[in-house]
């Protein structure tokens, strides 16, 4: 009983960590490249969840809906950055002013969703109740699929950063935007691209989160935001590889806490990890291990 529960908790932890890592990496790349710590990311996650819910509701295939939602939220992210954050930065807004601004953008988006969708809890039609035994862990088919999606996205991201010219432009922009511009990199386009792909990752994470949650309402993203932030900080802000490991750690430890302590207190455990990390190792734990390809700003 003890051990079968353990492997289940770890399996669930890996599954939720996979979803979390998509979000955390998106958030940390946004921060690394544009210097905005975007608290509205959680609200966009909620938008994705409800967008997917409605699309699936009218009969669109789940995976097609995921692609549509990803593109939509990606474009929305670009619009938010170019119309709100970037102008504020150009006017000399401090990082603190920007955080405050993102908080209000988050509130605006969250309550717009609430106004449209109401405050009832909704849930996706059960995709697949079939249980698989995967690497010794008990998982639903959907969870295994999301782990696969996360792995593909992470690998794609790795290739993008390390092998492509665009990846080099991204890293240069993160390192020093003025210098990158002086070297002929169209930094504004790089930043737009960043917000597009990170927004798309937010869309995928939102759909995946909603589909693996029993039921959700317009508050879905707010709490999950802190899970993503915790994963991000664990990995060191601005380090995509650190965020991947950090998110998996958070996913597994929150499920273990829920299993061994109390499901209600798993939030508390995650928050505590976040606060302790910030106090003890504000640069993160995995940043150094993740190597020099970080996007530290």
């Amino acid at each position, binding site marked *: 009983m003890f051990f079968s529960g353990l492997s289940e908790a770890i399996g669930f932890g890996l599954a939720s960590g996979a979803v979390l890592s998509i979000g955390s990496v998106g958030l940390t790349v946004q921060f690394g490249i544009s210097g905005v710590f975007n608290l509205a990311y959680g609200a966009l996650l909620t938008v994705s969840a409800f967008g997917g819910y409605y699309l699936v509701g009218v009969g669109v295939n789940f995976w097609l809906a995921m692609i549509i939602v990803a593109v939509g939220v990606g474009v929305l992210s670009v619009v938010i950055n170019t119309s709100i954050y970037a102008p504020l930065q150009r006017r000399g807004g401090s990082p603190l002013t920007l955080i405050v601004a993102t908080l209000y953008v988050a509130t605006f988006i969250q309550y717009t969703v609430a106004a449209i969708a109401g405050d009832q809890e909704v849930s996706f039609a059960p995709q697949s109740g079939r249980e698989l035994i995967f690497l010794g862990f008990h998982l639903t088919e959907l969870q295994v699929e999301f782990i696969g999606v996360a792995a593909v996205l992470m690998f794609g991201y790795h290739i993008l950063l390390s092998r492509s010219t665009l990846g080099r432009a991204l890293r240069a922009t993160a390192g020093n935007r003025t210098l990158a511009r002086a070297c002929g990199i169209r930094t504004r386009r790089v930043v737009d691209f960043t917000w597009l792909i990170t927004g798309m990752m937010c869309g995928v994470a939102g759909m995946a989160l909603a589909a693996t949650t029993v039921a959700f309402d317009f508050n879905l993203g707010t709490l999950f935001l802190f899970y993503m932030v915790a994963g991000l900080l664990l990995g060191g802000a601005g380090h995509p590889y650190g965020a991947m490991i950090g998110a998996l750690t958070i996913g597994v430890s929150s499920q273990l806490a829920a299993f061994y302590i109390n499901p209600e207190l798993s939030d508390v455990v995650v*928050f505590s990890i976040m606060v302790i990390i910030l*106090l003890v190792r504000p640069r993160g734990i995995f940043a150094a291990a993740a190597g020099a390809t970080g996007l530290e700003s």
Partner: protein
Amino acid sequence: MSYYALILVCYLGIDTIAAWGLNLEYGVAGVANLGYILFIAAGAYSYAVLRLPRGLDLGTGASYIGGLHWPGWLAILGSVVVGALLGALLGLVAVRRVRLDYFALVMFGFAILSWTLVGAVPGFLGGQSGLFFIDDPGVSRTSWAYAVLVGIICVACWFVLRRFTCGPVGRTLRAIRDAPAAAASLGKNLFGWRIVVQAVGGAFAALSGALLCGFLGAWSPPAWTSLETLLYLTAVIVGGLGSDVGVLIGVAIVPVLIVQGVQFLPTISSFPQFTSDGTMILFSLTTLGFLFFRPQGVLPSRRPRMRISTSPHGSLGEHAPQVATGRVTARPRSRGPKLLGQAGSDDAVLRAEDVTVRYGGVVAVDHVTFQARLGTITGLIGPNGAGKSTLMNVLRGTQSPDEGRVVLDGDDISAVPTYRRARRGLVASSQLSEPFSRLTVIENLCVAAPAQRAERLSGIVTGRRLWRNQEQVIIERAASLLEEFRLTSKANDLASTLSGGERKMLDVMRTLMTNPRVLLLDEPMAGVTPALCDRIERAMLKLANQGVAIVVVEHDLASIERICDHVVVMASGRVIDTGKMDVLRSSEVVQQAYLNG
């Protein structure tokens, strides 16, 4: 209807106290506390458990700690103490270690964490259903007497608040907000001030929470969701960051805006929980609109105007070696009487011993030993990337050396923080100018004056009486410096409006205000016109004549030759040669370093 008016007036007062505290933290001292509601809740819960009798049956199955049944005034006082302690504690733990944007996140997370915990544990503070049957603080909550009580406390708060937002203390806090590193280099204890501000802000929040709890007679988690912080933040942003009167207006506008948005008369239980989606949307749009189109708020904080007497005699240094318009052509041979120190090895007031700094695998400073003598100007030159600025940062205290030590007056100060070094007379200006941009030029100078009485506890308690005379002296000194550097006409302009060269001058002038014994200047003349350079050179020579040790990093070798007694050449992190500039010019090693660098 009149009861409705009573509710509005009481809320106006209670919210104003909270918003003032947040304004002190965010608007004045620049610390965004996104978990501010936590302190309001701490005050409310403290009041509740101090005022409630022991073990009252709440009828919800939940219970609470405490239950001291204190009289109302004592319960309020107790809450204020709890708020101040909590503020100081969280400030101590968090502000010390964490960047300010992370601090905002930590506090946001901390508020949610506490909220979850309080709701989840039924035996602590009443759990999810909260506490009720709480007595008013001895003044009936349904009579206008309560509004009078709130009003009186508001007025008292105003006087306390002004001790921190006005005068020299307000100036210091705003300086720390605008350019923390520069403020530390001028001897300001950032952490100390931030903890003080967190304590005062926490006390204000807790007082507001206690009065709110006394007015409502109940307190529970739904009353302090993390969104509540946004309410006060909006009041501060709309009213005017850093403006105490503006915040009062902001509080008046924001609740009205909410009441109109919700379109129902507020009842006691529903007012603070603005649940309507439309209200929240309107509310966030309003705030974003202000951040965009009027970031200074409805009533921006006023900048003080100081009258400056432009006396004809001025105070241009008697030691000025040349007529005002000419260039310094040769440095005077004799230096006049030295005021500090004696000739000999004791003159080496500041020493870097075997200092090494590595950035990852790169050795930026490689076992450098170097000293600065009283009454002399030491030039530090070398090609870009030689490690000059890193060495200066080690001396200044913003970078700690991996090996070696820094010695001031014979004491190892390697572990002494920047502000303490500044108080011991080691003052630096950095390579990039760091004006306190939202202070006026003359305020920038006044901030730097050392040992201000107004900044001590006694000065804050006693008020203007204690520091009025000293402040007058400081202003006069600043005015005479402005005249010496011919910036008198800009005295009351915001520092953000100065040109690049003028900012550099302001940096130098600020360091002069501190009465330094050792002055570190990192490229003080970069980007400054020749005429202004001349004034800076003149000021440096004058200081050296008065016995100050100056270390200057500069790329203009002609200037170095004019003013420096001794020159140290660095390349690739090492000292490659030392001596007089005219000799070094012909040194092959130095020429090679510059050509290859």
